[in-house]
Each structure stands twice: as structure tokens, then as C-alpha cells.
């Protein structure tokens, strides 16, 4: 009897399964936390619940059809993923993109960055326990931008609008006015969420010094995007390896100092404002003209070769490694997923914190399972 009691009083490390079905909106991701009392001792992420074989499917279709898989992989920042894919093909094939198409692409990609960060703001606030207020604000603002996307492309989520060489059809006539209006409106929306959360004491106590990762560790783990910038390294592919026409715009790169959850939130909020700035500059500079190159072939054939193209997606560095053996279909299309690399640092960030913080830290990584699992 006495020995049984002793054994019962021994503290046991419990395995808490933050299961594939999340109450928050992160998708099918499983995290097994080993918890001793209240602190997390070990964290093992399990992925693969959303693996759909996008890379393999891309090998079986030609370049125009393969674009659709990019939308469905990165389903919150679709234009950025499509941009990376199209740029990879254009660089490998030596295809010139007309000016107007470049501007349209940049405008849509930056607006998509804003919507993606809005989604982050809403989901993150929900993780923290705000009842849904920040979520509905974020989604209202997203609706304004999505209305533009819907008017231009016809769809609300899987746009399939870019093509290697340009965009598939021209934008609507009221595009410029709507974009200008949305840039102004977005600033109001960002301020709304800002006022609700940024200086809120409860928010601060939940997010300051939680999930810190130092600059050296961030570089070692291969983090990118807002996570890397929040840790203090000022690295943005739009400035350091400019693709498309990003070198024509003036914008700032927000960087954090502490690498904690709060810094990531601040970096993303400021990035939204900078994206609005880029869009405003682009819409003024946008010329008239064709949107596809004149001699665009009906069926695109790429010369043999390989290329690794990387772009600055809202979540980090999204890369496409394309191997072509001539012909209409790629030989190998590998997607370098930003979220997957960011997730490798999860264990380091989570261990030592409370269980409730683990959910918050996961929210701050801002994962999209389609991209993690492809």
C-alpha cells in the first residue's frame, strides 16, 4: 500500500497531444508536447496530414496547368506563390514579361501579402483568446481586398491568374480607383487591430519574451521571413535579391530586436503598412500596354536546365527548384516551403514555456499546412 502510494505521488511527464484538429485555424497539424507539471519539456511536431503530392502532380502537367498547384499549396498567399513559379519559368526560358504585367503582378502580390497578414492577425488573436473581435475586423478588411481579386480574376481563393510571361487577361477598368481606395482603407483597418491589441496589457503579458529565438539560432535553423526579421536580421529578398520590379519601389524593412512573439506580430503589422506603400507607388507608375509577350507560344517549351528561384512570401522564403529536360512538362519541381523550415525551430522555441504558450508560439509562426505538407 505504501509503495503504491509512493509510485502514485511520483510526478509523471504527461504527453499532451495538441491534435490534428485545432480549435484555432492552423490546419491539420499535430504537436505532441511532453509536459512536466506545467512546463513543456519536449515538443515533437507531426506533419504530413495534408500531403497531396503537389510536386509529383506538377510533373505530369504542362507549365500552364501546373500553375494551379501553386495556388493550392500556398492557399493564403496565392499570388506570391504564382509569382515565384512564373518567375522561375521565365528566368529559365528567357521570357520577357511586359511592363504592365509586372506592375499588375506586384500590386496583386503585395495586396495578397496584406490579406495574408490580416489572416495572421485574426488567427493569432483567436489563439490568444480574444473572442473573435480581431478576427472579424481582419476578415472585413480582407473582404475589401478580396473583392478586387474577385473582380479581376473571377475567383475568391484559387486565382490562377498569372501565366509564364505575364497575366492571363487585363485588369478591370476601375482597378486603379479601387486599389487606391483599398490602400487608404487598409491603413484604417490596420490601425483598428492595432488599437485593439498592440498596447493591450493582457496581450503584452501573453506575448512578450515568449518563444524567443536569437539571431544566430534563427540563421542556423534556416528561418526566413518575418520570423527572421523579428530576431534582428534585416534580410528581405525583395531588397537583397530583387526579383520582378521590386527595385523600383521605396519601402522599409521592419526588423525586431528580441525575436519573441510580440516582435513577430509587430513586424507583420508594419509589413502590411509597407506593402500598402508599395502598392500605392506601383499604381501610380503602372503603364498601359500588353500583358503577355507578343510571340507567346501556345504550348510553352522550356530549354533543358535547372533553376532555383526564391521570392519573399508573407511566410518567408518560398522557393521553386525547377529541373527541365526540354519539353512541355517539368522533370522535377521542388517547392522550398518557408513554413516547414520555420517549423524546425518549434521545439527550441516551445521548450521551457507553459502549455498555453505553446499554442501562442505556434500561432506566431503563421503556418499554412498546404505549404508545409505540399
Amino acid at each position, binding site marked *: 500500500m505504501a509503495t503504491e502510494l509512493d509510485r502514485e505521488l511520483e510526478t509523471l511527464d504527461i504527453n499532451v497531444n495538441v491534435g490534428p484538429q485545432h480549435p484555432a485555424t492552423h490546419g491539420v497539424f499535430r504537436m505532441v508536447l511532453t509536459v512536466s507539471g506545467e512546463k513543456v519539456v519536449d515538443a515533437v511536431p507531426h506533419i504530413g496530414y495534408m500531403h497531396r503530392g503537389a510536386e509529383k502532380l506538377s510533373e505530369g502537367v504542362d507549365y500552364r496547368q501546373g500553375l494551379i498547384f501553386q495556388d493550392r499549396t500556398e492557399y493564403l498567399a496565392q499570388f506570391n506563390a504564382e509569382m515565384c513559379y512564373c518567375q522561375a519559368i521565365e528566368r529559365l526560358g528567357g521570357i520577357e514579361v511586359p511592363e504592365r504585367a509586372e506592375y499588375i503582378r506586384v500590386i496583386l502580390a503585395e495586396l495578397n501579402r496584406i490579406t495574408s497578414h490580416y489572416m495572421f492577425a485574426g488567427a493569432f488573436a483567436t489563439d490568444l483568446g480574444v*473572442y*473573435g473581435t480581431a478576427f472579424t475586423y481582419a476578415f*472585413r478588411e480582407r473582404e475589401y481586398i478580396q473583392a478586387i481579386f474577385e473582380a479581376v480574376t473571377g475567383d475568391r481563393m484559387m486565382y490562377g491568374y498569372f501565366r509564364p510571361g505575364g497575366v492571363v487577361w487585363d485588369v478591370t477598368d476601375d482597378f486603379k480607383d479601387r486599389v487606391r481606395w483599398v490602400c487608404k482603407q487598409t491603413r484604417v483597418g490596420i490601425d483598428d487591430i492595432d488599437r485593439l491589441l498592440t498596447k493591450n496589457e493582457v496581450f503584452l503579458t501573453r506575448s512578450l519574451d515568449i518563444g524567443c529565438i536569437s539571431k544566430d539560432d534563427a540563421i542556423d535553423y534556416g528561418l526566413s521571413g518575418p520570423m527572421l526579421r523579428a530576431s534582428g536580421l534585416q534580410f528581405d529578398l525583395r531588397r537583397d535579391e530583387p526579383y520582378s520590379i521590386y527595385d523600383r519601389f*521605396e519601402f*522599409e524593412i521592419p526588423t525586431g530586436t*528580441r525575436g519573441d512573439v510580440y516582435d513577430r506580430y509587430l513586424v507583420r503589422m508594419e509589413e502590411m503598412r509597407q506593402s500598402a506603400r508599395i502598392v500605392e507607388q506601383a499604381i501610380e507608375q503602372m503603364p498601359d500596354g500588353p500583358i503577355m509577350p507578343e510571340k507567346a507560344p501556345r504550348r510553352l517549351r522550356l530549354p533543358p536546365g535547372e533553376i532555383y528561384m526564391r521570392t519573399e512570401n508573407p511566410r518567408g522564403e518560398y522557393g521553386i527548384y525547377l529541373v527541365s529536360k526540354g519539353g512541355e512538362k517539368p522533370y522535377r519541381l521542388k517547392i522550398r516551403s518557408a513554413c516547414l523550415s520555420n517549423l524546425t525551430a518549434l521545439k527550441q522555441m516551445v521548450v521551457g514555456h507553459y502549455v498555453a504558450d505553446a499554442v501562442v508560439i505556434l500561432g506566431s509562426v503563421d503556418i499554412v499546412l498546404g505549404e508545409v505538407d505540399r
Partner: protein
Amino acid sequence: MSALETFFDNVWIDALWRLLAVLGLMVLVVLALTWIERKFIGRIQMRLGPMRTGPFGIMQPIADMVKILLKEDLRPATADRLVFELAPFLAFVPVFLTLLALPFTAKWGVRVLDLGLLYFIAVSGLTVLGYVFAGWASDNKYGLIGALRTAAQLISYEVPLVLAVLALAMLAGSLNLLDIVEKQGRVPFIVWQPLGFFLFMAAAVSDLTRRPFDVAAAESEVAGGPWIEFSGIRWSILYALTEYTNMFALCVLGSLIFLGGWDWPLGLKWGWWWQLVLIFAKTMTLILVIMWVNGTFPRVRVDQLMSLCWKLLLPLAFAQIFLNGLIIVYGWPDWTFLLTSGLALAVAGYVVYSVIPVGAPSRIVVRSGA
């Protein structure tokens, strides 16, 4: 006439009909509050709330009630049967009992007790047992952890609540709720005790396990809460009914002792109809404030919850009692209450502000190369 009067003068019959009246009132209030909450939170979130069930969704509480009543009554096979079935009632009945001490007008309450305030606080503290019973009886590791955590939260926050109310009783010089309301004839006590009011509201929000203190619900996301094995009508009693009745009771108490109840500002000469209107208006104001806070704040973590209670609210409560005592003993004029209490509240705000490094924006922004 006289037969009817003597019938109703009988103590038992009198108690019975008052009890039934309060029961009916409680049911109506709970139904109304579910609707009000959903509409109000919807408005905060720029959406409409329920609209389909009846005009403007008025029948939504009825629909919810019907759904809950029709659910299967599940009970884990290994659960302790008596404790499992007792738990919802043990959580709900004390809350209902607190309603019995509240005077709704100058002449009507179920019973006016000399120690009304003490009775209220004492009885409402019994709900903790309901949660512990619920967690224990579920035979679920996570349910038990959640229940113990909720119990810790509720017990901890009782202390600032009791002390804030005690400070107020010192000010009023009585524990009789009627006396307290009458003493606020000219100025409601919130003016003299802003710190006490803040403590009362904070402790009330925690007593209701609402945001920002709804750790129990957050546990359900990760490790389960005390209600994890309860479904249907049991869950409804344990969670919805208790919470809304408790909210109503606490807000009525708050409006009686801090906002002047049915007396301020109109006084007694306007008749019982106006008194009812006043008290319900003030209660609704406090309820809406609680819902407003619910829709705005993120959740506090459980260890932060505890340290907030013991390191911030408790010293403030003691400070309030101490200041009240000083002023009463030395016979200083009334406005010193406002001065000291307001100062203490400001100091508290400053302490919270400085402990959290909000000042320096934690980011560097550098101009881009282009």
C-alpha cells in the same frame, strides 16, 4: 379579502410565492441574457448575431433550450455516479440562493437579511464545490486538472471580492443591503470608492470565468476543463445557467452597493415601478460592461492569473480597507474617500503600466537600399 390576506400572510406561502417569483425572474433573465450576449458580441464584431430564429433571433434561446433538452444524457461508465449527478446542482443552487437576499425595490425582496451582504458572499463561495465535484466525478485526468485550476481561480478571487465589499461595508456602516442602498441617497458609493468598484468588477469577471480570466475554457482547447464529460442539460445547468444567473446576481449586487440601487437618483417618492426600472437599468449597464470586456480582451495565462490576484488585487484591497479605516477613524470629510481611493487606483494603473515594458517600440526600421 381577509381570507386571501391571511392566506398570503402565512410565512410559508409568502416565502413560496416570492421564491417562485424569483425563479421565474431568473429563468427569464437567463433566456434574455443568452440572446443579449450573442447580439451584443455580434455588434462588437460588426456582425448581426442570430437573425433567423424568430424576428431578430428572439427565439434563439428557446431553440438552444430545446436542443439541449433533447440531447442524450451521457455519463462515463467509470464515473462516480452520485457525485457526477450532484455536481451541476451544487454549482447552480448556491448561485440561486444568493438571489434570495437581494432587495429589488425598497419593499420587495425574498427576504431582507440583516447580514445580507455577508450572506451573499458566503453562499456564492459554495459554487467552487460544484466544479471540484464535476472534475472529480468525470474520472478524467484532464477534467480533474481543469477543475482544480478553476477551483484555485475561484477561491483566489473570492478574497479581493470579499475585501472590497468589506471596505464598502465599513463605509456604509452596515451589512444590511437596504441600509446600504438608502445611505447612497445623494451620492452613490462608486464616487467614494472607485478602487473598490474596480476590484469588485475584476473579481466578478473572474468569478464568472469570463475573459480575460476564462482559463477554464482555454484548458478545453488543450487539456480539458471541468465540464468535459458533461453534456446536454447537465452541461447547461453547470455552465450556462450558473454563469448567467451568477452574472445577474453579481450585477444586481454591484448596482445595489456601488451604483445606488433603486434609490439614486430618483429617491423613494416615485413608486416601486420606477425603482424596478432603475435597478434593472443599472444591472444591465454592469452586465453590458462585463460583456464588453468579454469581447475585447485576450486570455490571461493561468500563472499570470494567480499572480494578478495575489500580487496586485489583494494588496489593493488591503489598501482600500486601510484607507477607509483611516478616514472613518479620524472623521475626515467625505471627499477624502474619493481622493485616496482614486489615487490608489491611479497608482495601481501606473504599477501595471510600468511592470510591462510597453514604452519603447521594440523594432528598428531601416530605410531600404533602393
